[in-house]
């Protein structure tokens, strides 16, 4: 199917991009660009008028989701040890670089093209380099390029989330290759199933407003598999490993919260009542999550920690993600509370089981993502479900979506992990781990406070 639709030339481009090589690509890109800049002169069909307001909000949402990437870098970066702070932040920034290019070259064409390979993925060769949508406007009045960029940010942040699960112990090179492959073979198909108009989960009426399954469950499950496959950090859990900069973690969670408004309210793809609803529940769920975590800790340890409040915010934000446009504030409070309780419990369980999901990607994103995707069925507004469907049926559909996601991500991630680890190398050696990723892999030190001159 794929072969039949694309010329061999473009195909080769999209394959080659997976490896961050770039030299040849530069020439190719230039040629292609020149060719297209001419062809762009062909007259466009009549288009829906632009809704400048909706467009403005979608532009902003794109910027806000982008803000989440440095936010995540700060959140994660603050939690690792001093010697790994840059390497950990690089995981987020490298996702910006690699997936940022990949998405424009082929990711969008694969995710939102018409079904191919039996619906496993989409493909629209005209959208290689986002060519076809260069000047088109969606029926909602928002230029398609904005939608493509908005979606591209989701594609960037998801692999960056995974990185928390194997923080402090992977090679940069292997990581770069892993996320490129993971993005094309795990994220893009999931995204197609759930959000493309001919995706099978979309057709089933599964509700995933802003990416509970596509983003959080997929990142959580893939992270868990990676943590199990790659093994724990040297010395874990006997050696106490302290966050190097909780102050930065707090800053990061602040930016994440702000950015999440774009993530969730932007997923309404307009600027109206639905958007307002999504924003309101995002705000309320995050606050509820934080409040709940604070209270749980106050009861459990008689102290509320700043990392606790940050984790609660995150749990609340994740749980509301799939539900953002469809539940009411009261439901958001309930979901926020439930999420913090479940995540707290899951992390305690992890500590007991002893595996090293370093920054609790499964503990927070996986757990709250699953909770949100399933439980939203209980809180959903009447009008939001496919007509006549009962809450219990919806719960079934949601569970199906969640289970498929879990199984697909687990299997595919494992395959990719083995592949990358055996070829390029993913797990960092013991000496490198002791020395720290910053100096070992990047030739840098995060803080130069000791260098006095």
């Amino acid at each position, binding site marked *: 199917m794929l072969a039949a639709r694309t010329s061999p030339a473009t195909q080769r481009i999209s394959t080659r991009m997976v490896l961050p090589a770039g030299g040849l690509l530069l020439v190719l890109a230039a040629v292609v660009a020149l060719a297209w800049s001419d062809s762009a002169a062909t007259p466009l069909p009549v288009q829906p008028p632009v809704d400048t307001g909706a467009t403005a909000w979608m532009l902003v949402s794109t910027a806000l989701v982008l803000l989440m990437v440095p936010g995540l870098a700060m959140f994660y970066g603050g939690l690792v040890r001093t010697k790994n702070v840059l390497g950990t932040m690089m995981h987020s920034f490298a996702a910006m670089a690699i997936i940022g290019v990949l998405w424009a070259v082929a990711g969008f064409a694969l995710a939102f093209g018409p079904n191919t390979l039996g619906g496993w993925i989409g493909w629209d060769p005209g959208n290689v380099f986002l060519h076809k949508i260069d000047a088109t406007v969606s029926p909602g009045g928002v230029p398609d390029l904005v939608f493509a960029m908005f979606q591209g940010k989701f594609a960037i942040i998801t692999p960056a989330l995974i990185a928390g699960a194997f923080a402090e112990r992977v090679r940069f090179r292997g990581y770069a290759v892993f996320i490129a492959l993971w993005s094309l073979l795990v994220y893009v198909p999931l995204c197609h199933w759930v959000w493309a108009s001919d995706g099978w989960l979309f057709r089933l009426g599964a509700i995933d407003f802003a990416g509970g399954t596509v983003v959080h469950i997929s990142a959580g499950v893939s992270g868990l598999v990676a943590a199990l496959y790659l093994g724990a950090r040297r010395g874990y859990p006997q*050696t*106490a490993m*302290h*966050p190097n900069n909780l102050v930065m973690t707090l800053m990061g969670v602040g930016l994440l919260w702000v950015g999440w408004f774009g993530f969730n309210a932007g997923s309404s793809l307009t600027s109206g009542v639905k958007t307002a609803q999504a924003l309101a529940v995002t705000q309320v769920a995050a606050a509820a999550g934080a409040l709940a975590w604070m209270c*749980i*800790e106050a009861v*459990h*340890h008689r*102290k509320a*920690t700043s*990392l*606790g409040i940050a*984790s609660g915010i995150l749990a609340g934000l994740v749980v509301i993600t799939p539900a953002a446009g469809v539940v009411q504030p009261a439901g958001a409070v309930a979901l926020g509370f439930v999420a913090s309780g479940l995540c*707290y419990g899951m*992390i*305690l369980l992890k*500590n007991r089981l002893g595996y090293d999901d370093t920054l*609790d990607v499964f*503990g927070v994103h996986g757990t709250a993502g699953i909770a949100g995707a399933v439980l939203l069925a209980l809180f959903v507004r009447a009008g939001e479900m496919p007509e006549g469907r009962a809450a219990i049926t919806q719960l079934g559909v949601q569970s199906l979506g969640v289970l498929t996601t879990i199984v697909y991500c687990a299997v595919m991630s494992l395959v990719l992990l083995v592949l990358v680890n055996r070829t390029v190398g993913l797990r960092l050696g013991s000496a490198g781990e002791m020395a720290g990723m910053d100096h070992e892999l990047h030739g840098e030190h995060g803080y130069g406070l000791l260098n006095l001159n």
Partner: protein
Amino acid sequence: MKLIVAIIQPDKLDEVHQALVDNEIFRITVSRVAGHGQQEDPDLYRGQEVAPSLLPKVRLEIGVNDAFVEPTVEAILRGARHGDGTIGDGKIFVMPLEDCIRIRTGERGGSAI
């Protein structure tokens, strides 16, 4: 002359400093260090108590003439104790000091302290 090195709890720096001044020891050098001893003082990390192997401490370094050794030790003991003495309160080390030079003037020995 002696060089006195004391490892104390960070929250007692002010009081030790005051006690030293009261005993007419005005010049000190201070640094942040981390110490491992009998004390345990866990932090919390996502629902778990984490006992770091190294706890934050403050290190004082004080060059004194022999006559001031006891007043210095006494001041530190006075300022650094939590209550009647708590695990982690720290140590004082007294070392021989052969010479002391004031950089500004080049003065040497006891008068340079």
